[in-house]
């Protein structure tokens, strides 16, 4: 038995060594890969220097064109939207990482129900920040809350398990040249969405998300950042009370809320949409002009 336990201990020591060496190797891969999200997150944790920081999901990433907003406002812009990152926990991590080395003047949070409603995507994409654990205590606190911090600290290789295959595969592939400061255009679809789908009703409140949303707001206040909430267009008919919780928080916190969805501004224009939730490039450019105009007006007051 003693020999068996010794053998297991030797295996553990060897594994520990492999884990640490492999972890260092994967760290190199992460910083050199052309995998879209991994590369974008490396940029977010190290070198964003824009005046306006756009945060959100794919609806942010595909809807806000930085060059259009920059030309209108005269401020530099970076679109830090990440597909599938549909929760305030992820956006809180993103902002915390950026604030470690740079303070933007304006943060635009392209929001939806993921900031206050119970959904299945609470921790979606959060693993992309796992390789950067240890850099930012505020972001690590999200991992701690999710019960994912200890296992990521224990094994360095574990930090890469959800992105290793893609990061390695994309190491040798060219980067996406069409990206404009974090904005990724969507090509024209073969056909536009042909119906609005069923009426979208609000989901139940998630108090943990609302608490994190308030932490997000106070983080902006602490750094004297002007926070703007925005709801970009979708091709759904939504219930008039869909964003009631969000509106209440915005009012309570005295935050501007640019709502391009509820007034059904785009609902008669399927030709701007790639699918029910996403504008393709032409729609995004049109929307960005409108948003830039509204943002400029707001900032000038």
């Amino acid at each position: 038995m003693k020999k068996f336990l010794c053998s297991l201990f030797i295996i553990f020591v060897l594994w520990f060594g492999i884990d640490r060496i492999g972890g260092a190797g994967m760290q190199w891969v992460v910083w050199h890969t052309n995998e879209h999200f991994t590369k974008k997150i490396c940029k977010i944790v190290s070198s964003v220097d824009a005046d306006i920081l756009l945060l959100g999901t794919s609806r942010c990433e595909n809807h806000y064109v930085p060059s259009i907003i920059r030309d209108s406002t005269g401020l530099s812009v970076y679109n830090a939207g990440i597909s599938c990152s549909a929760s305030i926990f992820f956006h809180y991590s993103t902002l915390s990482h950026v604030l470690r080395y740079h303070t933007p003047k304006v943060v635009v949070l392209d929001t939806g129900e993921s900031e206050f409603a119970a959904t299945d995507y609470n921790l979606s994409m959060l693993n992309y920040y796992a390789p950067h654990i240890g850099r930012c205590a505020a972001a690590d606190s999200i991992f701690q809350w999710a019960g994912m911090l200890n296992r990521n600290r224990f094994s360095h290789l574990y930090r890469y398990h959800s992105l290793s295959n893609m990061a390695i595969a994309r190491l040798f592939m060219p980067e996406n040249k069409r990206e404009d400061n974090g904005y990724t255009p969507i090509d024209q679809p073969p056909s536009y969405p042909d119906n609005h789908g069923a009426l979208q009703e609000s989901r139940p409140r998630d108090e943990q998300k609302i608490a994190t949303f308030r932490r997000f707001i106070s983080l902006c206040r602490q750094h004297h950042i002007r926070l703007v909430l925005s709801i970009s267009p979708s091709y759904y008919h939504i219930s008039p009370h869909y964003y009631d919780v969000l509106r209440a928080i915005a009012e309570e916190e005295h935050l501007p809320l640019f709502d391009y969805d509820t007034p059904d501004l785009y609902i008669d224009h399927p030709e701007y949409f790639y699918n029910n939730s996403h504008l393709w490039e032409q729609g995004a450019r049109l929307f960005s002009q409108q948003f830039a105009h509204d943002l400029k007006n707001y900032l000038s007051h």
Partner: protein
Amino acid sequence: MLFNSIPFLLFFPTICGLYYCIPADWVRLRNIFLLVASYYFYMSWQPVYSLLLLTSTAVTYLAALGIDYYRDRRKQKVCLVASLVLNLSILFLFKYYNFLASNIVDALTFMGLRLEMPVSKLLLPVGISFYTFQALGYSIDVYRGTTRVERDFLTYALFVSFFPQLVAGPIERSNNLLPQFRGKRTFDYESAMQGVRMMVWGYFLKLVLADRCGTYVDAVFSSLDKHNGGSYLIASLLFPFQIYGDFAGYSLIAIGAARILGFRLMDNFRRPYLSCSVGEFWHRWHISLSTWFKDYVYIPLGGNRVGRLRQYFNLMVTFVVSGLWHGANWTFVCWGALHGALLCVEKALGIGRREYHGLSRFLHWSVTFILVCLAWIFFRADTLSDACTIFTGIFTKLGVPFVKASDFGIIALSIGLLLLIALRQENLVPQKTLPSNRLGTSSFLSFFAIALMIAIIILFGVLDSSQFIYFQF
């Protein structure tokens, strides 16, 4: 509690540590401890279903005592039949009732009659087919006189519920496992290290090979309308590796865990995809189930000792029942029937009666592999209509497939490693090509290989505690 979950990774070492703290001479106490651990393991799913396990155990235990008690063969038969009927009734109620009821309703509707039958909302208890068959095997063995009756209820209950093989096999035989529970078990270093290696390799097969293949296969099979024949073809080629990695991986973890505890379970897989005939495939795939059906269904039906036509009939019955064992769905029945038919054809043509070499071996292997892959389509498809869509899609709508290049790299490397090891074990490649043949259980290289494999699993495995496919059976 899944083998690929954090609770099991805490449960198993704890159980091992406590188990070996009990002196080896205290066999009964060790058995009681393992019994409690096994029920705890089973109850972590649905505690109430442990009553079914207990019922099956009690019924077969009492039936065996009855068979042993009576000298009259007819009374013995009554005991055996009572055990079979009770156990199979439970299995039928939980697994097949809804299938039968819906088919009766459909058939009557087809004939213009209307009948409403109640629908059972009972959940299928995990592992019910496995432990029921294991317990029935014991009853039949006692009736046949090929195994000694077990008078100690706790020892017998442990035989039925032993946690490493409780929910997905191997379906153990009483004359292999029961004597091991009766005897003294001392710790054996070599055996325990073999167990560790088997578990690690099993985890690799499940988490890296099977679950990576699963991401593609599930994406295609769950939305057939969004994919073309090219994707169907790739998914159909990956599914055999998914199910092999999933089930052989589970079996290896089970056998390895049992070996660390000092028990030897039967092998369940012997490189099935290197078979040169469908008959050979069934000597290598899910061995514990195929030998169960051979011993308790095929041979009692007359086996090979009857006329040719009757042999074919026996084969078809055995394989249709085997298909049905896997699930209450016509897809499984078709899968079983297809294998039965292929075996009949092989028997008629005399295929698989001799060893093949060189080109002949390659041709036989290729044909067998393709046939097995095609049959798996029935197994994986949700309905017969889906299976037909896939078949027709492969042959008529072959377009550019949906590709997940990042996953394919890992899958290709995993299959390559699996193939290399399998070829070496079959002595089909020069022994020098792989050093592991000469690795002892305690060499540095062996330890390093285990540590490296764990690191690979952590880095490339799908670590979301996904279900094992065979749990649903």
